[in-house]
Each structure stands twice: as structure tokens, then as C-alpha cells.
């Protein structure tokens, strides 16, 4: 084996467990929450949440767009999170929801009365933990939805990095396995059976 091939083999093996160790907690979070999402019956009290309401005076929000005005209102109310707006707004109102894994806030801002009516919902710890799995601020089947909180973008970057890390680990593991000549036959049988099962679902046979 040439020295460059040897170097590649050593670094490929290192990359496999370096990536695995770095992403360990991310992997455990997405595994545990994936199991929760598929077995909601195991958590009958998951969606119990606390609720509180209050009204608060506001200044006329600064900005030319609804997003800018909403951000200014959030600053005034001390809120942070992903924003979404209802399909329609009452006249002289800016209504919006702000959400994070540990809760959400519903704001009905009356610009004429300079008053905001706020309802806060607090999620339980387990529910908040589960939401991390899906907290991307964007839904592929809702073209209008988009991320508007920098922290969500960073979390999405972490999700993407984990996905890239997993792909690299899997591809690297194929190389390491192929170098073990006495394990090729059984390994091939395992890989082929896994691939066949997976392909049956992707192809819509099952």
C-alpha cells in the first residue's frame, strides 16, 4: 500500500470516530426525540402547558415593513423567537405569534390604542425537548414560511452539519469495511438487505 493510501486510511478512520464523538449529543437528541415523535402514546401528558395573559402599553412600532414593525414590537415586549403572522390582519393591528421550543407567545397589538394583548404559553420540559427535533422555522409544504430568527438559523446549521457528518461517517465506514477482505461477504449481505428494505419504502412498494 502506498504511503498516501495509508495516510488516507488512517485519517478516514480518525474522521469516523472524531465526527462521531463531536456529534454524540446531537445524535442522541435527534434519536430520542425521533422515538418520542413516533410514539406519542408513551407520553400522555406531553402537551400540558401553562398559560398567562397580560396587556401592555406600546409605542408606535418603527419600520416600513410588517417584519420590521413586528421586530420593534418584540423588542418593546422583550420577546425572542420565530415569528409567524395570521393569514389576515385586522385594521390598525399587528398580530403575530412568536415561538421557541419552550413556549410560544400570541401578540395582538392594537396600534390605535397603543396597547398589546399578550398570551404566553409555556411548554413542559419534555415537550420543549421534543420540539428541538423539528425547530427549523421553515416548513417545506408551506412555501411562505421562512426563518426570521438568527438563533434558529444557527440551530438549522447544526442540523445540517450533523447530517453531513453522518453521510461522511457512513461513506467512510464503507471504505473501512471494504478493506477487511474476510468481512466483505457477510458485510455485503447486511448492506444489501438494508438497502433492499430501504429501497422498497422509497420506491413506494411498502
Amino acid at each position, binding site marked *: 500500500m502506498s504511503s498516501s493510501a495509508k495516510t488516507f486510511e488512517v485519517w478516514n478512520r480518525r474522521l469516523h470516530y472524531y465526527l462521531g464523538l463531536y456529534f454524540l449529543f446531537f445524535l442522541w437528541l435527534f434519536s430520542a426525540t425521533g422515538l418520542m415523535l413516533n410514539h406519542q402514546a408513551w407520553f400522555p401528558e406531553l402537551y400540558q402547558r401553562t398559560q398567562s395573559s397580560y396587556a401592555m402599553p406600546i409605542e408606535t412600532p418603527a419600520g416600513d415593513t410588517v417584519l420590521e414593525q413586528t421586530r420593534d414590537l418584540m423588542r418593546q415586549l422583550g420577546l425572542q423567537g420565530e415569528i409567524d403572522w395570521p393569514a389576515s390582519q385586522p385594521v390598525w393591528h399587528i398580530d403575530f405569534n412568536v415561538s421557541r421550543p419552550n413556549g410560544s407567545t400570541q401578540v395582538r397589538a392594537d396600534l390605535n390604542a397603543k396597547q398589546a394583548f399578550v398570551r404566553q404559553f409555556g411548554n413542559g420540559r419534555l415537550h420543549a425537548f421534543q420540539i428541538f427535533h423539528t425547530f427549523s422555522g421553515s416548513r417545506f409544504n408551506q412555501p411562505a414560511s421562512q426563518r426570521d430568527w438568527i438563533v434558529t438559523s444557527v440551530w438549522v446549521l447544526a442540523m445540517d452539519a450533523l447530517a453531513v457528518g453522518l453521510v461522511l461517517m457512513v461513506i467512510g465506514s464503507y471504505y473501512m*469495511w471494504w478493506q477487511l477482505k474476510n468481512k466483505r461477504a457477510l458485510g455485503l449481505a447486511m448492506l444489501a438487505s438494508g438497502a433492499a428494505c430501504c429501497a422498497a419504502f422509497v420506491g413506494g412498494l411498502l
Partner: protein
Amino acid sequence: MLYRWLRNLHLYLGLFISPFVLLFAVSVFYLNHGKLRQDTLPPGETFQDLRLPDGFDRVKGREAVERARAILPQVGVSGEIGFLRYVASDRHLIFPVSKAGLETTVDVDLDARSATVMRRQMSLWESLAYLHKMPGPHLVAIRGNWIGTRVWRGFADATIYLILFISFSGIYLWWALKAERRIGLVLVTAGVATFSGLVYVIVR
């Protein structure tokens, strides 16, 4: 002995679930960054003289879904029923039926004993995202009304359990490499710091 057994299990079980891991990993990009194109649905196909179960105005939940399933073979559709919508004013029953690659909407006229079926092909990306999200947390009472979804749930669970086994066995295999312990500990610490820092910033 334990080391050898764990290394072999880590390898062979890892190879078996690797296509599923790739599916879950690759679909993340579509779920995070993709947008579904709102294509116009092709014209529907109409089926007449159907043998329809009764009671859709009374029954709900799993029982209603079981009755709706009796209609599917008559209109050449298979898959998971998403939900049921009974429109009392004109006695129509409308429900989506999905599986990877195909989303179908079935609109049944209960009085005319006819049904209109509209099919929409999913892209490969959408199919992967669909599988990633199934069975999911919604409408738990009726979810898994198709054998394919129940089997997929089994594979999705097995992927998680095997990933957990592979991560624990991986820690054991790494710890056995004394020369790699220090750098490994640095990486675990860096990973924990990144993870807990992000979680803190999101929930604080």
C-alpha cells in the same frame, strides 16, 4: 473477546442500517431548505357503482378509517389515510392517501356511489422527507392504518435503537485506542459545549 464481538456487531449492524441513516440524513436538507412546488393537479379519474360502507355520518376515528379503507381497492389506491373529512351538506367523504412517491386525494359521493381520484407524484426529495416524518406525532389514533406505515415505524424505531447501540459501542471501541483518548475527549467536550450552548441560547 468483548472487543471483537462489539467491533463485529458495530460493523455489521452499522452496514445494515446505513441506507436508513443516509435516508434520514439526506432528507434533512429538504426538510430544512426545500420548498414544495404547488403544481396544478392533473384531472381526476372517476369510479362508479362503488360498494360503500355506511355510517360515515356517525362513526369517527379508527372505525371511520377502517370503513374508508374498504373503498380503496375499488378505486385502485393503496397507502396511509391521512385524515377523513365528511361534508354533511352534500354527503361527500374526502380523504388523502399517501405513500412515498404518490399522494392521492379520494373524493367520494356517498349518494351517487361514485368517487373521483386525483393523484400527485412526489419527487424523490419529497418521498425521502415523507418517510423521514412518518408516522410522526399527528392524529395518533388513526396513524398506522396501512401495513406499510406500520412496517416503516418498525424500521424507523430499529434505526434509532441501532444508532444508540452503535454510538455506545463506538465509545467503547474508541476508548480502547489509548493514543486517541485525549483528542477524543477534547472533541466530546467541544461537542457538549456546542450542544449545550445552542440549547441555552434557544431556550433562555
